């Protein structure tokens, strides 16, 4: 990690109350995420991977201050973002941006491109209209669009172009951190690489750091410096991308990677049979949440005790009884 971490997440949990049963008498708690710890340094990319329902989206919403955590803190530049007010909040808003999955739904169809791209500037900074235009044009230029596109409406663009517009809006304030929520999964293959390259270029140019949520493991590997593998609301493995992908420690990581299909008929795949599907977060299994599907389940320990996340060498951490003494 280079320099001081820009974002620190400590013991972050988000629980939802859900009423079930007749008359809603039983009140259950769903632990969407629990006890997350990670940090990101400047210019770094951290990827969150896992199956749907593992808590990736909740995590990003907590980091973006769209939801309030039940426990724990998110520190940005050393300050708890959920305590920010006034000017500090504005500054946070302008320094943290996001790009969402669907370029069709993430751009307000009734707003001109210029106004859409400029929104973070308009609400957070005091600029003249002319200055805003200059910044918008610069941002559009950065993502490969022309200044005259600013006058158009979203429906005049294709999916790939829309995603560029969304990126332009995310970088217009020169943020430090951009949350990328499945940013390429709805794009065509031939466009995908353009956008992936664009992310790399922007990171190189502006020293952005990214939090990437993606289900395509190849993309993750290409973009991310470090990766956190999540299962049922918890991080089960954490470490440098290459390390994790080349030598997965947690059985779940192993299974996940084995399920990814390389675009190469000759590639050797070590297929791991993982039975069943992700259990409902309403009734998570006791002990290690993964044990019912685990091909390396050790027995009682896995069934009854929750394995803590244990740090290994080189910033790696694993939460598995295989690695506890």
């Amino acid at each position: 990690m280079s320099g001081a971490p820009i974002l620190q997440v400590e013991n972050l949990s988000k629980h939802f109350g859900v009423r079930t049963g007749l008359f809603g008498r039983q009140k259950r708690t769903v632990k969407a995420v629990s006890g997350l710890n990670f940090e990101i340094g400047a210019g770094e990319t951290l990827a969150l991977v896992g199956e749907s329902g593992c808590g990736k989206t909740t995590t990003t919403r907590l980091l973006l201050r769209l939801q309030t955590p039940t426990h724990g803190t998110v520190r940005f530049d050393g300050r708890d973002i959920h305590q920010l007010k006034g000017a500090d909040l504005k500054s946070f808003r302008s320094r943290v941006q996001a790009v969402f999955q669907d370029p069709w739904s993430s751009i307000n169809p009734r707003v001109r491109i210029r106004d859409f791209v400029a929104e973070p500037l308009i609400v957070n900074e005091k600029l003249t209209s002319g200055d805003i235009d200059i910044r918008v044009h610069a941002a559009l230029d950065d993502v490969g669009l022309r200044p005259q596109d600013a006058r158009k409406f979203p429906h005049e663009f294709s999916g790939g172009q829309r995603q560029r517009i969304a990126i332009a809006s995310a970088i217009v304030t020169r943020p430090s951190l951009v949350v990328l929520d499945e940013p390429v999964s709805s794009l065509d293959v031939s466009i995908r690489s353009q956008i992936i390259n664009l992310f790399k270029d922007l990171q190189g140019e502006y020293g952005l750091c990214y939090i990437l949520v993606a289900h395509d493991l190849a993309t993750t590997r290409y973009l991310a410096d470090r990766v956190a593998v999540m299962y049922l609301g918890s991080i089960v493995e954490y470490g440098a991308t290459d390390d994790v992908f080349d030598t997965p420690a947690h059985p779940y990581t192993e299974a996940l990677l084995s399920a990814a299909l390389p675009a190469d008929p000759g590639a050797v795949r070590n297929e791991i049979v993982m039975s069943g599907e992700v259990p409902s977060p309403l009734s998570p299994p006791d002990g290690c949440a993964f044990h019912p599907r685990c091909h390396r389940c050790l027995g009682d320990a896995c069934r009854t005790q929750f394995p803590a996340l244990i740090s290994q060498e080189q910033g790696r951490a694993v939460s598995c009884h295989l690695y506890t003494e």
Partner: protein
Amino acid sequence: MAEAPLLEVTDLKVEISTKAASFFPVNGHSFTVRAGETLGIVGESGSGKSMTAMSLARLLPKHAAHIRSGSVKLDGRELLTLSEPEMRRVRGKEIAMILQDPQTSLNPVFTVGEQISEALRLHAPGPRRTLRERAIDALRKVKVAAPEHRVDAYPSELSGGMRQRVVGAIAISCQPKIIIADEPTTSLDVTVQAQYLRLLREMQDETGMAILFITHDFGIVANLCHRIAVMYFGRIVESGPVDKIFARPAHPYTEALIAALPKLRGQQGRLRTITGQPPVPTDQIAGCPFAPRCEYADARCRSELPPSVDADSAGDHSASCWKVDR
């Protein structure tokens, strides 16, 4: 090689005509699928791959889309000239389909059992109880746990992967000769996708049916298919055995697509990109449709449509490109 192909599609053209415009989303392509074989049709959105699938089952949207020319032969029988009731007996019984989204491809108001046995009742009628037994059998075949219980479940009670298995059960229930699978795993998680593809392979091994697998994911074709057809702008631009195409792509588009993918192992530098945007079906392009984005294109590429030519001497690998020998 000598045996007759199970499905033979020749020069298929589909026209969509609306008040505003008229265009050919499927513009004259030909391919064959042999029994027990999996053909992968790969293409980006708007390339006409789903339209191809629907036109094989003659289920194009009424009024708007029409098959303009070509022939579709299943086991030697021409499908395009069948009457609608005859065609209805082909659908489901001889050609089955698995659609893209398991969330929406099951009717939410009927139980799983009702939906499976409906197909059975249409093509192999029997008493109620037998139908139910056979529906349970079909569920068992697609490895749904506790099929006796699940048969009475509504789709909303099942997970995504489970639903897609049910769709699979409907597809295989009448032992079709060919299954057309239109992006059946796109909305599934990778782990569930892997399970599902394994299931498809097993079913194929068991029944010897052919699979026409439509996808945009090269990872899937690489792992599942025997042969590949790559589509671009309503045409098949390249087709051949899967290993040949990955090893020596003959069409620049195929080549660029494969190179543009990030690799899971062994990392590369900057990703290769294809410039520009994929064309939409309403575009008018003279010459090779890929020419505007192609790094090898010359004047002839921009004015004349390239014919399909053999890419090697074996005769099982062909591409539509003036520069096959580049």
